Structure formats: C-alpha cells, structure tokens
C-alpha cells in the first residue's frame, strides 16, 4: 500500500488521520457497522437530523453581518435579506460589547477609530431598536448577538425587550443566542471577562429563562467554529464541544430546575467550522450527530429523537481565507460550503472573500449568499440526503473521528472538565501546538496554500482594498449615550440596576432583572460595572 508521497511525506487528513489510497468494505470498524443501515432522521442520526433533508428544509443562508452605527448594520441586514439570506445575524461592536463598556470608557476612547469596525455599537435598548428596525423578527430566525459570554445577557434581553415592545409574544419568537465559551475563553480572549464559573451561571440562567418564556429560542449555541479556528483539529473540535455541552447539562442537573431533556434540546443547536479538507469536514458533521445521540443516551438516558438530533450551523473557516489573491477565496468558500452541505447542515454562513483584509464589503457579502444559492439551486445537492453515506472512505473516516473525539473528550475530563481545561490554559496549549505545527508544515512545503506559499504570481486586475465601514460610529454612539442618560427615567434606571446587582450577589436567575434593566434603559457599561464589581475578572491563563 502506498501511504506516502513520492518524496516520503505521509498521506494524512488535516487532523492527522492516516489515509489509505482507497477504501474497502472491511476498513469500516466492526462496532460501526450496525449503524450503516440507519436512515437519515433515525438514531444514531449520523446520516442527518431529518428524513427528508433539504427537500423539505433547505439549509438557512445565515451570514454574520454588522458594522458602524445601528442603522448601518440594519441596512446591511436588509441588503442580505433582499439578496436571499433566510435568517439574520446581529453583530455588536466588539470593543464595547465583548467588554461591556460604554463608548466613553477610557479603554474605548483610546481606540475610538476601532469602534463600530466589527459590529454596530449598541449601548442601550434604543440602539438595538434602531438596528432591528423593520426586520421580520416574527418570521425570521435571528441570531441576536452576544457571542461573548458576559455580553450575551445584554444582547438577548435587548432583543427580547424590543420584541415585547413591538407586541411580539416571546413564546413565538424564533432565534438563537450564542454565549460561546470557545470564543470568550479560548479564541478571542478579551481584556476583561467574568470568570468561567460565572459564565456557567449566566448560560444556565439563559437556558432556564428560555425554557420558561421562549420555547422557540435556542438559548446558547456552542461554537466549535471558534475552537477550530483557534487551532483545534477536527476531532479535538468535536471532543471539546461535547465536553462543553456536558458542563452545561450538569449545571442544569445540579440545579434541578428544569427537565434535563429540555436542557439538552436547548444546547443541541451548535456550530462547527468547515475547512478545506472536504471529506474530513463532511465526515465531522456525521460524527457530531452520532456523538450527541450517544452522549445523551449513554450518559443521561435521554433517547427522545426530537432531543437527540443535533442541529448544526456551519461557518466556513475565516482563517483559510487568504490576503493574497483574494478572489481565490470565492473558490475556497464554495468548497467549504459544499463540505457543510454534504455533511447535512441546518444553516450555513460563508466567509467573505475579503475576510483576511477587512469585514465583508457589500459585494463580498453578496457573493457569500450567491455561493450558497448556486449550491442549492444549480447543483442538485439538495435532492438526496447524506449523499456520502455508504462510501467506505467516509464511513471509516466518520468512525475514526468519533473514536478520536471521544478520546479527546476523556482527556478533557481527566483535566478536571471543560472549565478546568480553560482555566489552566491546557486547551490553549493544544490549540497553540497545532498552530505551530501548521506554520512549520507551510515552511517545509508539506502544506500548500495557493497564492501564499505557492503559485504566488498575482497579476490579477481585481484589486480588493478592504471595506472600512463608516467613520462616525464613535461620535454618534457618544451622542446617543449622553441622550439616554439625559432623557431616561433616572430613578427607574437606578432602581433596575440596584435590583440587578442584588440578584447577582444572590443566586436567583439574572435574566428577569436583565429584562427590567434593559426596559429601564440601563446601559451596557453600567451592567458591565455590576459584573466587574460582583464577579471580578477571569484569571487569563495565557499572555496574548
């Protein structure tokens, strides 16, 4: 068997799984043979969450979007919906949002030009209202923002408060939160953040609150994407994602405040990264559904098929988009999107071809939508569910990923669990090892990136110069902040803030007090000050 290149390099998948030149029936491990005959929509669900796949439910075209002032973001979201996007994502400014600072915080003022560059500045319910103007919130699935753990209660309570004010019953509102640990504590470590155990409280509070009031809302969404784009490989992404889910479920179990199956349903809407190893990535999604079903059945005795079918959003890898020869990224986006489509996604976002240069321009955004429309409407990929099922190669790769992912899951448990593996920096070290290995592989030529490490000649006439958004986001945000302070009912805001602080110092669910605070026009920075006073700062295990 020829497992090596002519120059002696091994043929392996991106995560390091050795690959044969071709596969046969007997390569599929015995313990994985029984599942092969299952249909999509049947346990163990590796073949798909639903029996009829994209025929009855095309994947949602779901693009991250946002910059500038709330009205700029609103306009971009409307543009995407006009282009054919079938859900929408709100992105809050990272400087203010991730840190729960108002724009007049000294750390933000020092970087005033950055404000609004990666999301709209939303400091009060008034800003969120502007961003949501005329959006079809009753019918359209929305991601309300709040990717970072300490920011999520604000983003969600803001979105829900606007919905309530518009007369939309919360129990009919479709959408998703995020509050992702991988972004917050692994991939994009902020200057200041609540500790991981406080984050767990916040997320469990959001899960309970949605269980009571927003049954159509996905309360938290674990984003393997952020783990993978920080460096974890395909099976590490899987293992870590389920280690994270276990942490949430066991917190709910300790509380005993809601049925565990409903909590499992609540955290069964996750995201993965799709990268360039087409078959490994498609197999990863099959492995993910299989693992979720196994985890719930074996660890918690949850077997309800409506709970055990993992729903998956995918985003194509931003880190695979190159600065050099950016038009090549349209091809990369297409291939990564195809991997997701073949793996059976419920929704998909394709990174802009200008990802390595800036936030997406309008044209890059339009291309991300078009790529998905071409796949959905021209290729017939939607006709048959799990088209890779039964391929000896893909079934073997699926099995291999499952086995390796459970080993990684066990390694995390041996570290004391998922939170402990973040607190100690163990997971960061794993990601850094892979990052380093990847760069070394690029240097030796083992890994080729077209236009970057090879085929570098770029005589393309298509210049891409990076979209810079608007330049008045900071000034307008400052004016609006002052306006809120001047015109809100001050006693009401102060009382709501005191109430929030009191709840934080106790153990009640924070979300009712958050809803009151947003309704009383308490601002983001004031809420952040409560977090900092009551919960302190996470002891970051890495030097960035």
């Amino acid at each position, binding site marked *: 068997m020829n497992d090596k290149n002519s120059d002696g390099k091994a043929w392996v998948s991106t995560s390091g799984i050795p690959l044969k030149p071709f596969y046969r029936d007997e390569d599929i491990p015995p313990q994985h043979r029984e599942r092969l005959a299952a249909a999509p929509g049947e346990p163990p669900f590796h073949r798909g969450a639903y029996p009829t796949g994209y025929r009855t439910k095309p994947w949602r075209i779901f693009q991250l979007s946002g910059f500038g002032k709330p009205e700029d973001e609103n306009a971009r979201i409307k543009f995407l919906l006009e282009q054919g996007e079938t859900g929408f994502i709100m992105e809050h400014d*990272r*400087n203010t949002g*991730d*840190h729960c600072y108002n724009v007049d915080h*000294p*750390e*933000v003022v*020092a*970087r005033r*030009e*950055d404000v609004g*560059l*990666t999301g709209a500045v939303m400091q009060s319910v008034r800003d969120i209202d502007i961003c949501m103007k005329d959006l079809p919130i009753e019918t359209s699935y929305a991601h309300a923002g709040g990717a970072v753990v300490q920011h999520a209660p604000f983003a969600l309570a803001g979105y829900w408060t606007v919905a309530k004010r518009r007369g939309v019953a919360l129990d009919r509102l479709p959408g998703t939160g995020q509050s992702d640990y991988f972004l917050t504590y692994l*991939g*994009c*470590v*902020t*200057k200041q953040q609540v500790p991981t155990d406080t984050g767990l409280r916040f997320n469990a509070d959001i899960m309970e609150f949605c269980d009571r009031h927003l049954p159509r809302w996905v309360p938290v969404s674990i984003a393997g994407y952020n783990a993978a784009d*920080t*460096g974890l490989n395909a099976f590490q992404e899987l293992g870590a994602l389920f280690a994270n889910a276990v942490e949430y479920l066991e917190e709910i179990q300790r509380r005993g405040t809601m049925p565990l199956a409903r909590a499992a349903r609540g955290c069964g809407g996750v995201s993965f990264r799709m990268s360039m190893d087409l078959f490994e990535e498609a197999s990863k999604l099959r492995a993910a559904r299989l693992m979720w079903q196994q985890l719930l059945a074996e660890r918690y005795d949850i077997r309800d098929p409506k709970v055990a079918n993992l729903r998956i959003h995918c985003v194509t890898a931003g*880190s695979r988009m*190159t*600065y*050099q020869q950016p038009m090549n990224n349209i091809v990369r986006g297409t291939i990564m999107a195809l991997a997701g489509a073949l793996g059976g996604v419920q929704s998909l976002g394709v990174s802009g071809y200008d990802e*390595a*240069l*800036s936030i997406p321009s309008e044209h890059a955004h339009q291309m991300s939508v078009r790529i998905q429309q071409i796949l959905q409407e021209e290729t017939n990929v939607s006709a048959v569910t799990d088209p890779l099922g039964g391929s000896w190669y893909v079934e073997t790769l699926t099995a291999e990923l499952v086995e390796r992912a459970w080993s990684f899951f066990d390694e995390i448990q041996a570290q004391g669990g998922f939170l402990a593996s973040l607190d100690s920096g163990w997971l960061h070290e794993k*990601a*850094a090892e892979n*990052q*380093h290995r990847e*760069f070394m592989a*690029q*240097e030796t030529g083992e890994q080729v*990136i077209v236009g*970057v*490490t090879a085929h570098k000649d770029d005589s393309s006439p298509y*210049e891409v*110069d*990076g979209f*810079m958004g608007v330049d008045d986001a900071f000034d307008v945000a400052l004016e609006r902040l002052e306006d809120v302070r001047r015109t809100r009912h001050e006693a009401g805001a102060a009382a709501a803030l005191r109430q929030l602080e009191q709840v934080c110092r106790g153990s009640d669910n924070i979300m009712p007090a958050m809803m009151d605070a947003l309704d009383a026009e308490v601002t983001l920075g004031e809420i952040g000050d409560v977090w900092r006073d009551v919960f302190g700062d996470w002891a970051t295990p*890495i*030097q*960035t």
Partner: protein
Amino acid sequence: MSGKRILMAKTGLDGHWRGPTIVARALRDAGFEVIMIGMARPEEVVQACVDEDVDLVGLNIGGHIDVAVRAVTALREERPELPVFCGGVVPPHAKRKLEALGVEVYPPGSQLPDIVGAARRLTGLG
C-alpha cells in the same frame, strides 16, 4: 540568545491571540527575548518601550489603522530611532499608510522566516 529585546503589543481591544502568539514563539526560537504586553493603549505601548528598553516593537493590529498610527507617532516622539514592525488585518491602503511612516508590515499569509529575518535586520543582527 541574541541579547535583543522585542516588545509585542496589540493596539486594538480585539482578543484574537493566534497570530501574535505564533510570531512570538518564532522570535523566541530565533533567540530574541520577547516581552508581550497584550492589549495596550498607545501611551501604554510607549511607556512599556521605555521601561523595558527594547530594540524593536511589534504591533498586532486588529482594528482601525488610525489607532496603530497614533501608537507609532507617539513612539516616534519618545524614541525616534526605535524600529517598528507590525502584523494583523492590515488592508493594502492601511499598509501603505504605515509604510510611509517607516513601519514594516507583515499581513496575513506572511511566512515566519521572513518575519524573523526582518527582526534580525531591524535590530542590526544582519
């Protein structure tokens, strides 16, 4: 050890650490002493350069170019001879702006040997 010291800082409040961490490791492997101060305001970058008496500054830019330009301008006032190089999400127009200030720019896709080579050259190691 080369005996040369490099200060690395992030000008933005965006916490992506992947790029600067890879670069710091490569620089350490090449014998440099790397002092990472993470997210820092322009005046904090200047203060750290004075306190640490470094030979080179590496800025990671995760946001608007004008924030980095302010950091560079402040550095030039305090230590005009101190070389600066930077990496991160720097679109071509921003790259040109920084290069006009004498700052070397290593955008995404730059290879580590080139970055290490620049550090050697900028610190007078050849």
